[in-house]
């Protein structure tokens, strides 16, 4: 149970799976960078990178070559050990946390069940929150290790901002936990599968055409969670840490070349966690609109008249595609918001976190608890 499996085969599969998910995250970053640059160009009525390869897609390869040929620089005033540790550490929390998010229904063979995720954690939310709260160390290590005032100020601002919004984030999740009564992400997705159904005062309301997604029960929580997730991943409109006009580039002022790229991988990793959690909590995870995984597999078996084995594989692929589409929509919203909204001022940022989002998240928790209590305690 504590180790990675019972047999050598299972251990090997689990190890390969984690490495695979990690490389999927890493190779998604250049695609997102391309999307971000083309997307910003589209929003600002420019061309963007369009010379290298079709639609500028090979631009990424050119960028990687450029990063690799940059000379390796470390400022003399800084602490070299922490300066080099910080970018390596930037990769770790994002990747480890993302692996706990389920991406499709399990692939069942005769003797094994393969989960389409890095690993199954039975206290998924607590694990992801705990691991991603370690990201503050990356920023502090980079800021202090650079030995520059701009870096230190940027690190200070970024960590104060991250911890302020972690409160609203944690409190918005309480509503989700109340709704599903579990910490486990797979159980949450199961609770959202199928058609809309809701029990209150002993009656059950059903709507077969609508999905049973969390957004219908937790709209305020979803907005608060998504806004806090922007702040957690240091994206505009919350990118005070790297406000170019004030702090040059914040905590990574002194970084360049591949080390800079590793910070980017970390930042995009946090974006991916936020999108993945948003999909899992409020948009049904991998589940397809108003259908349970069993329905989907049955449908494949019936319409294509294939064996259960093949139907299971098809269902895994269909659910994975469904997850990817939802996931991509949220990543696009991240990019779109970055090029739409202006940056906050620092006091506005702190006011929004502490005086607006925290009270709203509290109210959301209290109302959710009251509604759950009243509707299930009193039976008319």
């Amino acid at each position: 149970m504590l180790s990675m499996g019972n047999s050598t085969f299972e251990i090997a599969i689990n190890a390969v799976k984690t490495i695979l998910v990690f490389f999927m995250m890493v190779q998604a970053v250049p695609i997102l960078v391309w999307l971000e640059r083309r997307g910003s160009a589209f929003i600002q009525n420019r061309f963007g990178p369009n010379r290298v390869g079709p639609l500028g897609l090979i631009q990424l390869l050119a960028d990687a070559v450029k990063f690799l040929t940059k000379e390796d620089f470390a400022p003399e005033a800084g602490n070299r050990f922490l300066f080099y540790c910080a970018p390596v550490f930037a990769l770790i929390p994002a990747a480890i946390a993302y692996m706990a998010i389920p991406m499709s229904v399990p692939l069942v063979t005769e003797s094994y069940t393969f989960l389409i995720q890095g690993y199954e954690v039975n206290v998924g939310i607590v694990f992801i929150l705990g691991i991603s709260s370690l990201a503050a160390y990356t920023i502090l290590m980079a800021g202090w290790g650079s030995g520059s005032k701009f870096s230190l100020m940027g690190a200070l601002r970024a960590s104060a901002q991250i911890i302020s919004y972690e409160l609203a984030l944690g409190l918005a999740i309480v509503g989700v936990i109340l709704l599903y009564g579990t910490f486990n992400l797979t159980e949450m997705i199961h609770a959202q599968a199928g058609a809309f159904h809701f029990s209150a005062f002993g009656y059950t309301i059903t709507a077969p055409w609508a999905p049973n997604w969390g957004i219908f029960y937790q709209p305020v929580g979803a907005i608060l969670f998504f806004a806090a997730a922007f702040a957690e991943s240091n994206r505009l409109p919350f990118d005070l840490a790297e406000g170019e006009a004030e702090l040059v580039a914040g905590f990574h002022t002194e970084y360049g070349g591949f080390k800079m790229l590793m910070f980017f991988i970390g930042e995009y990793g946090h974006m991916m966690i936020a999108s993945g959690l948003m999909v899992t909590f409020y948009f049904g995870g991998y589940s397809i609109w108003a259908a349970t995984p069993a329905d989907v597999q049955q449908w494949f078996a019936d319409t294509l008249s294939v064996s259960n084995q093949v139907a299971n594989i098809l269902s895994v692929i269909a659910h994975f595609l469904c997850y990817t589409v939802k996931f991509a929509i949220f990543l696009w919203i991240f990019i779109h918001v970055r090029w739409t909204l202006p940056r906050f001022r620092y006091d506005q940022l702190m006011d929004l976190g502490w005086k607006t989002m925290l009270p709203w998240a509290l109210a959301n928790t209290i109302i959710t608890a009251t509604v759950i209590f009243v509707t299930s305690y009193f039976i008319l």
Partner: protein
Amino acid sequence: MSSDAFLFWFLALVTVVSGLSVVLMTNPIYSALSLAMTMIGVSALFVTLNAYFLAGVQLIVYAGAVMVLFVMVLMLFDLKHELQAFTRGRITGAIKIASVGILSGLIVGAVTMGLKTATTLTESASAANAAVALKTNPDTTRALAENLFIKNIFGFEALGVLLLVIAVGTVALSRSKGGSHARD
């Protein structure tokens, strides 16, 4: 050696080594980062005891909040003077000797206590039974909730008041003028 035992010894080694480096490092930043690493190691040890929720709390509160504050404060002070004051001088020497004495006493005590408990546990098969019970019933969060909100409800509410008092005290302290680090 089974994989569980290997995992335990590996985590114990990580935790003890990072705990030692908290004391032995001369740079306070490295000490604080080592302490954070110790917290992460302790959290992983909680997982080996099936206390998943507590492991998460250890990560969120200690590694993610308390140690971030420590590292933040240490990084933003110029620590050269403070370092000199704490590593030189007669009183510091006396404190060092006293700490070594207390530490060796603690180690001796822990080893003797540990040996006693180990023998009693192996004599009765209760340890094995407890392990089996843990493996079959991993829902420790519910037991925790029952303890916290039903059995010890008064302590829980008192804790809320205590946290409020701490918050008020912090704000009051941050308002006070004077001291060696006063700005104006």
